[in-house]
């Protein structure tokens, strides 16, 4: 059983929900990213979503766009980030999934990417611009390595599409809370909970919710209705606020600790 499935099994036993923390590899540097992985785990992150930066992140809002820009400059790429994961893998069992735009995988080679990532200890991948219609070659390569391909579902997805997404997904389903890009929102959309009830009826795979979640009460509300909450931009914003400061890692850890303790 891969680490993601095992994690959800353990959480279910404990009647707990997953907290998934997103950070961009290479922002502010690959060295700090390594420290952040441990810090996030120690502060209650159940799964780490690790971004590999792309020059044109069209599903992302300004915060993650800026983070991608910094990380691209720091030469974070599939090879360097996979080497980083390989290094931390000897010391942690926390599931790690990549968040990566498809051109980077396409350019690297689909088979080669899955081999590199899984042999480095990465457990799965989220590709924001790859719907199930286009993910067949990635899924075929992933199956051989029990590597998870996590697809996204959206508020606009029809019932037929939700079924297709569920069938194509392994590990969990990433439910996009709103129509829009990543980024902090004051309020989550009212229809989110109705939408979650709808998708939960159609799948028995874990459903985790991302986009717009930044506050402890939002994490708590989402965790009640779904199998996990994903926080990205709010963590990146914390990193951004502490760029160049010595206690960046601690500050980010403390912030994440504040989000997870209420779950």
């Amino acid at each position, binding site marked *: 059983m891969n680490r993601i499935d095992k994690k959800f099994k353990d959480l279910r036993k404990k009647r707990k929900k997953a907290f998934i923390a997103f950070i961009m590899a290479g922002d502010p540097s690959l060295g700090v990213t390594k420290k952040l992985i441990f810090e996030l785990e120690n502060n209650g992150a159940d799964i780490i979503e690790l971004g590999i930066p*792309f*020059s*044109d*992140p*069209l*599903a992302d*809002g300004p915060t993650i*766009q800026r983070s991608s820009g910094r990380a*691209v400059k720091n030469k974070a*790429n*599939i090879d360097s980030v996979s080497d980083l994961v390989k290094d931390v893998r000897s010391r942690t069992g926390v599931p790690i999934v990549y968040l990566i735009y*498809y*051109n*980077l995988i*396409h*350019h*690297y080679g689909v088979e080669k990417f899955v081999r590199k990532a899984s042999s480095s200890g990465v457990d799965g991948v989220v590709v*924001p*611009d*790859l*719907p199930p*219609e*286009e993910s067949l070659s990635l899924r075929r390569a992933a199956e051989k390595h029990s590597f998870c391909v996590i*697809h*996204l*579902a*959206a*508020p*606009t*997805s*029809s019932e037929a*599409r939700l079924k297709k*997404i569920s069938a194509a997904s392994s590990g969990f389903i990433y439910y*996009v809370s709103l*129509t*829009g*890009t990543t980024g902090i929102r004051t309020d989550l959309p009212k229809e989110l909970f109705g939408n979650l009830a709808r998708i939960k009826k159609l799948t028995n795979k874990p459903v985790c919710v991302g986009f717009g979640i930044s506050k402890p009460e939002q994490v708590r509300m989402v965790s009640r209705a779904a199998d996990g909450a994903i926080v990205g931009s709010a963590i990146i914003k914390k990193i951004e606020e502490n760029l160049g400061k010595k206690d960046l890692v601690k500050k980010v850890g403390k912030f994440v600790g504040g989000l997870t303790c209420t779950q």
Partner: protein
Amino acid sequence: MLPDKHGRFNGFGGKFVPETLMVALDELEKAYKKALKDAKFRQELKILLADYAGRPTPLYFAKNLSKQTGARIYLKREDLLHTGAHKINNTLGQVLLAVKMGKTRIIAETGAGQHGVATATAAAAFGLPCDVYMGTEDIRRQSLNVFKMKLLGARVIPVTSGSKTLKDATNEAIRDWVTNVRMTHYVLGSVVGPHPYPAMVRDFQTVIGKETKKQVLKREKKLPDFLVACVGGGSNSIGLFHPFFKTNVKFIGVEAGGLGLSTGKHGAALCKGTPGVLHGSRSYLLQDKDGQIKIAHSISAGLDYPGVGPEHSYYKEIKRAQYVTVNDKEGLEGFHMLSEIEGIIPALESSHAIYYAVKKLAPKAGKNKIIAVCLSGRGDKDIDIVKANQ
């Protein structure tokens, strides 16, 4: 006929977009297919193109250039259309479709500003609000078009990310669409993007090639030997080429050579790029060793784009078309040449095609060979740049 039902041209194209947009693309594809078969829609569009845009456009026999070169050079005068370029063929079609789909807001991306002006124009004609995303670098280069869009009642939203040009304006328009997808129609300006855009924009632009075919046949009693058009995203060129696909007519697409291919500062996705995925489809593009998208360069804002339409990638792979480059300096020379010799001031984009046809192709093609060049736009918008480069 391609694309297939997955929106693929032999492996190019597809739908590489966030899930949020998938339903909107399906809805658009259905509405578009229905409109194609709907006699009333076709009639409405035909009247708009004739009475509002000014179609058919003339095919002008460029007698002075022909005399100089020995070839028979024809210019398809898309520059004479309302708003000054071929872009209006597509925006009228798409905005009419948006109205039929019940959409209440229009957005667009623009590089040179021609597509932005054409979209703002169509939106004004149908009484829809319109937001146009434009890179700040292009806003600087194309201030006249920015002012025109504002006059037409559109909002021009400056984009400061990345290269601050067409690529980034397109990212930002897609982000807007993801956010407002239910009531907004995104009028993409070229044969790029996810399916059905490359096919739909092509179909709205094939009016260029269909008219050219008829007009050349009438004048010459035979088909042309060569078709020449510039390629940024590739809409005027596909529009000219596609109706001739099954003939023996040779296609030449002219990409931006920028400061020279060896400098890396150019817009030649087909000549110097490799296949990749950008803005929703798989096609040739300019990228670095990691797959990060490179910043394109061209003196002409409309050719300043690191990608190209998937159908062009297909034409390249099956060798149906030949793709060549013309650099900034040569493009400028084409601009001056057409102005002085034929009394027509062309857009800098079209000047690339003119230069290639007159300077490179005609001398080699042989006497009396018929060359039809797409004069995709007029040059008013480029006067400042040309002045600055004198």
